[in-house]
């Protein structure tokens, strides 16, 4: 997936000279995960800039650059280092268009590695998308495969508004997939049906699509037909796709790596409860990270929802 991300950068930088890449170690080093590898050589130091080490500065600078008509694609090195930048994202980037009545805008992409599962050090495995989804005026996007990363990143860069682009670290090198470098974007604000089914709807996103699809394969053997929805854009949520699926299956399980409490899963559950309560044949179930700190890596696999937890949740839902 990491190559697909670099490829999307390359395509759009070639097409649109307003696109400028900024961040720590994105230049000569090509990013700590190599997501911007080779870009500085191709596009020069003005368009691919190593910044000083300061996250609030990166986000604030992106606000200024974008208000001037550039399209900054900024990398925050890990999601755990995002928080100094939240002041700029929440108080300025997300509402520049709103408060100037459309006079100034912030077409920024804030990219960052997301989630755990690669034995990384402390503060390198967070999945705190909920904090961002709560902020009006920004989109939050999380791809689940190389092809989706390519198409969604292109869409994010082309979007006229700020997009936070969460890149699940477990997927960076987890799978090989042929991605055609054709500059074709995928739609934002649209969930993708990864697999059709009739008995239960499972909504997930990012890296937990892996465990979910494995769980579904197990359930298949037991004759359970599960429909899997990759949410892809976490905010705003594509309610229509979810509601249509639940109308068909009558059952809903939500899987996410982030902590359960006030997680995106809670919003999905609320949407379904508000709009489709009578379609439901069983209570909604959530399989989520626990409401504790993402533990250091000796226990991270106990934190991340496992295949078995998902299988059990689906079976309980079917038994209700």
């Amino acid at each position, binding site marked *: 997936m990491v190559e697909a991300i670099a490829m999307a950068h390359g395509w759009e930088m070639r097409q649109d000279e307003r696109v400028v890449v900024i961040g*720590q*170690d994105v*230049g*000569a*080093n*090509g990013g*700590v995960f190599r997501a911007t590898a080779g870009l500085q050589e191709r596009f020069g130091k003005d368009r691919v800039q*190593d910044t*000083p*080490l*300061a*996250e*609030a*500065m990166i986000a604030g600078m992106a606000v200024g650059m974008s208000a001037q008509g550039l399209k900054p694609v900024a990398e925050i090195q890990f999601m*755990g*280092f995002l*928080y*100094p930048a939240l002041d700029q994202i929440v108080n300025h980037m997300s509402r520049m268009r709103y408060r100037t009545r459309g006079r100034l805008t912030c077409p920024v992409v804030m990219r960052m590695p997301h989630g755990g599962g690669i*034995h*990384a*050090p*402390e*503060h*390198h495995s967070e999945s705190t998308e909920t904090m961002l989804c709560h902020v009006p005026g920004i989109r939050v996007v999380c791809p689940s495969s190389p092809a989706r990363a390519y198409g969604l990143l292109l869409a994010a860069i082309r979007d006229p508004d700020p997009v936070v682009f969460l890149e699940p670290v477990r997927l960076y090198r987890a799978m090989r997939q042929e991605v055609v470098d054709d500059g074709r974007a995928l739609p934002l604000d649209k969930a993708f049906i990864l697999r059709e089914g009739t008995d239960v709807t499972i909504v997930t996103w990012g890296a937990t699509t892996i465990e979910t699809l494995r769980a579904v394969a197990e359930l298949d053997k037991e004759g359970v037909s599960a429909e899997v929805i990759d949410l892809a854009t976490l905010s705003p949520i594509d309610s229509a796709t979810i509601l249509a699926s639940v109308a068909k299956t009558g059952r809903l399980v939500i899987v996410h790596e982030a902590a*359960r*409490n006030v997680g995106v899963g809670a919003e999905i559950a609320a949407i379904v409860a508000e709009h489709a309560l009578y379609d439901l044949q069983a209570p909604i179930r959530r399989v989520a990270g*626990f*409401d*504790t*700190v993402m*533990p*250091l*890596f*000796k*226990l*991270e*696999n*106990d*934190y991340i929802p*496992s295949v*078995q*937890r998902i299988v059990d949740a689906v079976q309980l839902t079917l038994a209700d």
Partner: protein
Amino acid sequence: MKTAAEFKIPYTQLLDATGEPTRELPAFARDPEDVLRMYRLMTLVRAFDAKAVNLQRTGQLGTYAPCLGHEATHVGVGAAMRPEDVLAPVYREYGTQMWRGVTMREILTYWGGDERGSDFAGPRQDFAWCVPIATQTLHAAGAAMAFKIRREKRCALAYIGDGGTSEGAFYEALNLAGARSLPAVFVIVNNGWAISVPVAEQTAAKTLAQKAVAAGIPGVQVDGNDVFAVREVVSRALEDARAGAGPTLVEALTYRLSDHTTADDASRYRSDPEVKEAWKSEPLVRIRQFVLKTGIWDMTQERALQQDCARQVDAAVGEYLAAPKPATDAMFEHLFAKMPAHLVEQRDVARKYGAKSGRH
């Protein structure tokens, strides 16, 4: 035109790269036992660091931040501090921590992915490793504020890297410490590189020590490969702070001889000749030459020390590897003083699946 303000940044070196004194040495440097205590720890840290990198390479440790080349700065600071002071480290100052009683086993436990490594048996009030860059400088300022309020003759010392001095939190800490004349010392370990970004791309400032000027506090530079100079400069800064004279910013000039972490490959962004040149002034050879030349140490003792260090490191590694994995429960413990009901429930779920997953 009048000059509104001027500043000077003093630079201190006591031993040159060959271990020759460049000026009269302070009392501690003339006390063989004191000198050898620093030398022995620097040697141990070097051996430990190499072993830790090796453990990572062989899949027995997670990502690890080496300290190769920083031993003089780290041990010099450790020797300058008093036990009752408080340390706010970054994440590679093992020499200071080991001087203060943090064990090699604890360091390995942390980088081995287990929070128990941060529960230091030795310096109970020292802060744990701090990965979010520069945030620890404010913790040191806060601890110093507590000492000041309680009128305790103690100091807080925070480390920060060259890259970290670009963060807002660093300036906020210096400003607060200056404005309230706090008993705090900030040590910038300027090793030339913030992962792949060299200092010249980080700032236009000629020195990092001069960042003190805007906070109204003294800023000094020291040869960070010279353990005597580091100890001398930091001791003075701590004495001043303890005496109520306020904080100091110390910039220790050294070089990151290793990759940033074991997940990094520095050959992608920096040149071999630069690294080779840096090896010529590395800290351990310098102090070794000094102790040999002054006759307080000989090669027989050196060989015995190398063996002893290897033994100590092996023993720590053995303890680390023999320790059982933390129980699944550990991720719910210590989040709150008392575990709330929803976590009790989630702990029970995790127990069930932790056992089932067989990934322990």
